[in-house]
Structures are given as C-alpha cells and as structure tokens.
C-alpha cells in the first residue's frame, strides 16, 4: 500500500468523469478498493461487507457533480457513512450515582491499567474525586503498577495485596470511598480472554455487586478480526456502556473501532494516544473515519498547533511578515514552536498521505538540521540576529565555531533565510493588496 487510499479511489473513478451518474457497473472497481482498504485496516470482513452495501446504495444514482471528481464524491460518501457508523456525536460518561462506579474490562495487555490512570486524571480535572481500585488479582505486580500511577497523579488507590477475592476488594473499596469522600470509583480489573467463562463470570459477579454506571471495554487499536468476537462476548456477558481504544499513537489503522461499533452499537468514548498519562482524548468519529481510510488527520494537527502556538505571538509574527521585518530572531521563535508540535514524524503522519510519504524516510535528519539552525542562531549576538548584514567573514567563523558547524553550513543557512525573507516580503505585499480588496488570505503560518 504505497498509494494512499484516496488516490487509488480517484484512479478507479477516473473513467467515470462525464458519465453523469454513478452506476452499478462503474462503481464495482472502486468498491473493491474500498473493501480492500477496510480489510487492510482490520475491519471485520462481515462488517466491511455490510458497510460496502450501504455505501453502494447511497452512491448509486448519485449525480456526478461536474465540478468535482467522482472519486472525491465517493470518498465523501464513504467517509460520511463511516463517521455516522462510528457514532456521529461524542458520547459522554454517565457519572450519576453516589458514588459513580466505572469498570474497566478487556483482554490482556490492552492497556486497562494505564487507561484507568488516564481516566482518573481526566475526571480529577473535571472536579470529580476519583478513587482507583486495584481489582487485578492475577497479574504479578499489577497492583504496584496502579499504585505508582496513583502516586504520579496524586490520586488515592485502594489496594489489598494478596487478596484474591474481587468482591471483597470491591466491598471494602466502596466503604473506603464513603469514608474518604471519593465520589468516583474506577475498577481496574484483570485482563481475561472473552471465552474464559470462569473469569468472565467473576466480572459478572463484580458488576452485579458494584452496579457500575459505566462498563468500558478497553481495546487495542491494532486488534484484528478478533475484535468482533471480543466485543460481542464482553457485551453479551456484561452489557458494556462504551469502549476505550488504546495505542492509537501507533500506525494501526484501527478498523477494530468500526467492528466494535458495528456489532455492539456501543459508543467509543475515549482514545489513548501515548504512554504518558495526559495522552488521552475524547473519541472523534470523523477523525477515526479518516484514519481507517488512511486519509490523515488534519484536524488533530491543527488543534495541536493551536495548543502549542501562542495566539499573540502569531499575530505579532504575521504583522512582521507583512511588513517584511522577519528577522533571525523570529526565525528562531518559529523553529522552537515547531518543536513544540512534537517530533516531525508524528506531525507528518497526520497529513493526508503523510504516513505513506514518510515510509523509508529518515526525518530525524531533517530534525537534526533544524537543531543545527537553532544552534547557529543562538551563537549570534542579538545585534547580528536583527541585522544579518553585520555577519562578516570573521564573525561567521566565530558563529560557526561556537555552534559546531562549518562556515559553509552557516552560509547555506543564511542563504535559505534570505530567500525566506524575500518570499515573505512578497507575501506581505500580496496580502496587503488582498486586504484592501476585502477578504484577505490567511497568514502563511495558518491562522487556524
């Protein structure tokens, strides 16, 4: 799969232009591509089949709008349909009940303990008083793991080392919560196979005793066809209220999300996007749809950029650019802001086709170059940064030595910078012109 999904689809639809209508025969090839893409993304084959049927019905007879390519039109139909299937609205947690109880269940190694910690952190931020309950009585050191997470977060953890009766733990945890005014209990249960009847029954007993408001299935985003069986079994035994999809920071396309939603109808409430405790987000169906189809995640990127970039800085920068006063100092600021977005490869991956484009490329080289640039600018005096013309041969040798590069490298950087400055001046003029005409282009840095 070196071609992105949408470009493949557009290829399949090239012949469709000018036909006026999408018909059964000319859609077949495209739908085959869609099916393959879904299967590659680990969507369960039955779910994929049903999905294709739905898309077919929607697409058939749809007018081919002259101005856009039929391929794009189909992509839109597909991603809309996928978004709808994944749940068109975000599902919130049910936190009624005093105290409210949340049960985390799932297979081994799905990420239940980490997710419990992350969820507790989120709830604490929302003003709840969470209590983490260590209910994994099987895995060695599982309780220690939760305890450590609790300490890191400053959230109390209820644990009884050596206790093997989950119900007993639950009873005492509820008492503990009452005595210590904790209003939200998160039960971190042991990983188990969905077909391990004895262990599943243990969960059923725990559920009947605790009567939780939320029973969340924690599912690894890389789960394959098996996701359907896992979800169905856990749902029929426990009546899940939702799911948490973990390890989405990897490159798994996450078709399991669609499988899960399609067979249980339960909403996906959160996603885990990293090993750190704040890497946890509400689930966004439309972003997941793009991901499953391999179409990138521009929205998340923009959001992250907004988080990393200071609005005022941005305005100031734009103003400077418009006036053609972009200095090396501003360039340094920009380099640093880019760093805040995280490693370049993560940023690239969010762009449509970015993951494909990046295959086999070593972005760390590019990153190293940025680092060198930063060092070079840091090696200059503030006067030099403002007026690069000051940099004569002697000064250049000094800067190069100080930042551990050759003078040639420094020269290359300075040339690049000069080009950039030129370009920005032009852009600034152009923008002024546009501004007079009303409207105006968004700044080069993207105003959001």
């Amino acid at each position: 799969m070196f071609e992105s999904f949408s470009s493949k689809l557009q290829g399949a639809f090239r012949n469709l232009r000018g036909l006026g209508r999408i018909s059964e025969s000319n859609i077949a090839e495209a739908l085959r591509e869609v099916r393959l893409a879904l299967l590659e993304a680990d969507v369960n084959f039955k779910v994929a089949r049903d999905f294709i049927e739905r898309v077919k019905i929607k697409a058939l007879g749809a007018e081919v709008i002259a101005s856009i390519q039929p391929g794009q039109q189909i992509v839109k139909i597909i991603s809309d349909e996928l978004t709808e299937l994944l749940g068109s609205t975000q599902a919130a947690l049910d936190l009624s009940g005093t105290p409210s109880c949340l049960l985390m269940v799932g297979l081994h190694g799905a990420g239940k303990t980490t997710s419990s910690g992350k969820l507790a952190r989120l709830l604490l931020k929302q003003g709840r008083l969470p209590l983490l309950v260590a209910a994994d009585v099987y895995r060695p050191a599982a309780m220690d793991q939760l305890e450590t997470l609790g300490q890191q977060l400053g959230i109390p953890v209820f644990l009884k080392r050596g206790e093997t009766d989950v119900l007993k733990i639950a009873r005492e945890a509820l008492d503990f919560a009452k005595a210590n005014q904790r209003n939200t209990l998160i039960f971190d249960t042991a990983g188990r196979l969905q077909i391990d009847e004895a262990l599943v029954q243990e969960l059923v007993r725990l559920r009947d005793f605790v009567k939780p408001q939320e029973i969340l299935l924690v599912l690894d985003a890389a789960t394959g066809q098996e996701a359907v069986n896992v979800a169905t079994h856990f749902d029929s035994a426990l009546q899940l209220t939702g799911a948490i999809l973990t390890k989405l920071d990897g490159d798994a396309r996450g078709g399991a999300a669609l499988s899960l939603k399609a067979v249980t109808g339960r909403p996906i409430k959160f996603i885990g996007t990293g090993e750190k405790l704040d890497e946890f987000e509400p689930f966004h169906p439309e972003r997941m749809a793009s991901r499953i189809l391999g179409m990138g995640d521009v929205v998340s990127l923009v959001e992250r950029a907004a988080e990393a970039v200071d609005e005022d800085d941005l305005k100031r920068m734009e103003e400077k650019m418009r006036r053609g006063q972009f200095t090396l100092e501003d360039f340094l600021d920009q380099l640093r802001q880019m760093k805040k977005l995280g490693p370049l490869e993560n940023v690239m991956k969010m762009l449509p086709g970015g993951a494909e484009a990046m295959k086999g490329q070593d972005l760390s080289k590019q990153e190293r170059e940025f680092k060198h640039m930063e060092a070079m600018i840091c090696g200059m005096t503030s006067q030099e940064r403002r007026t690069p013309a000051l940099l004569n041969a002697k000064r250049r040798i000094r800067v190069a030595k100080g930042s551990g590069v050759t003078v040639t490298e420094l020269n290359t950087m300075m040339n690049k910078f000069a080009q950039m400055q030129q370009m920005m001046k032009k852009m600034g003029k152009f923008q002024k012109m546009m501004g007079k005409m009303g409207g105006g282009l968004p700044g080069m840095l993207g105003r959001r």
Partner: protein
Amino acid sequence: MGLFSKFKAGLAQTHSRLVHEIKRIVTRSPKLTGSSLEELEHALIGADFGPAMTLQIIAAVKLAYETRGATGPDVFAIARAEVEKNLASSPSDLLQVPGGPTVVSIVGVNGTGKTTTSAKLAHYFQAQKKTVLLAACDTFRAAAIEQIKVWGHRLKVEVIAGSYGADAASVAHDAVTAAQARGVDYLFLDTAGRLHTKHNLMQELQKLHRVIGKQRAGAPHEVLLVLDATTGMNALNQAREFHKAVPLTGLIVTKLDGTSKGGMVVAIQKELGLPVKFIGLGEQPEDLQPFDAKQFAQALFEE
C-alpha cells in the same frame, strides 16, 4: 499432556472454526466457483490471514481445481500446503553460543506479553538444565520491575534490575556483566514496550543492543519480537519496523490460547522470512511451546 496435543488444544479454536467454515462451504456447494470461493476467502480473512495471503491461497485453490478437475481438489490439502509453503520450517530452538552467556533480547510493542514471555523462556530453559538470568530492562512502565521480580521469585531465577528512569542500556550492561561473572547459559533481556513508530524509542533500543554488543561479541545473539495473536494486519508493520531497527532473529506469538488466530504469522513469514520460535498458550510458566510449522499448518486445517 504431550506437546502436540497441548499445541492442538491451543489452536483448537482457530482450527475448529476454520474447518467448520470450509466444510460448510465444500459440502453445500461442491463446485468451487464464484460464491463458494468468496466464502472461503471470508473464512481466511476472518482468521487474520490478511488480504494478500488470502488471495494467494484462493488462487492456488482455483488453480488446483482447474488443473485437477472436479474430482481432485481437497480444499484442506491445498490450503495446508499453501500455509506450509509460507512457513518455511526452520529450527525453532534458540542458539547457544559457546564461551559465555547467550544474550536474548525480548522486544515488542506495549502489552504483547514481553515480561511474561521472558519469564516463560527462563522457565523453559531451566527445565532443560540450563542456567538462566533475567534482566529488567523496562525502566519506564510503572511496576514493570516488580512484575519481573515476582516472576524471578516464583521461578527462583535471579533478576538484574536498576531503578525506574534509569538508562535501560546500563541495566543491560550490568546484566551482561553479571551473566558473565556467574557463567550462566542464557540471559534474557525484558525490554520496555515501544510502538514501532516511535523513532526515539527505537533508537534507544538500538543503543541498548550496541552497548551489549561492545561488551560481548555478537550480543544480542537472539532478538525475538513478541507479537500478540489478537493483532491484525498491524503485526506486519510491527515486524517490519522492528526488523529494520534491530535485525530480528525470530518471533514469539503470544495469547494463542482460546482466540482464533494464527493467520498473520503466515503473512509475516511470507514477507520477512522470520521464523516463529515459540508460541504462548496461557498465563502459566509452562504455557510456552516451541513452534513447529508443520504442526501449525496441520492443526490449522486438519479435520
């Protein structure tokens, strides 16, 4: 329980479902055309064979049907032959390097069962009268060190550990020194889980290997990627990327008990030629079995 029967019991799920599906397809419509082939395709995809591998098997079945005629093709035989062909059988046992400890690095993404597998491997070689040592090189995840220490205590195996946040490479270095001093046969490094897409974490792993490589020639002698059997097509990416960063010598597939999996292994071996060395069939120390391609293919398709 014999090895073979244990193996079969573990794969029973996969096997029974596949056989059931294929039987249903064959008995209902003996002519292998159109819709029945499509159903066979679904059965294979459903077992996580992946689109490419599935198409290959389907093509072989088609070809056999066309060449041998209606009396010929036995779907099971053809499918088994195809799977076997792609699971080039290679000795599944680990190397034992003379003149010092054989260093085995256990790597993989988060939550595949590296720690449990390291412990099981220690137990497996202990049972073969080898001396072993475990190293807790996961200094990142909360309680990872305690987890392997509990295992060490249970199995009476010494565990070399550092503190949390310590450089994993330095723990590995200490472990190799200890292994050399004690003259053990095998040293298992339980490394931290890392997603194959995290460049910096992969570099950390490369560094770890570099450090111990300087200490003992050829170390790590074995680099085993632990794969979760429930993983779908992403397993291929995982294997690909890990193999690129730290040349792997084999795979260990875990959690094969009870779930109907096995397919993705075929796809991985086909592309990367990495042999599966062991399979994990449960949570107990003895639930680790050497992998046998022939048995695997047989258990997958036989009646």
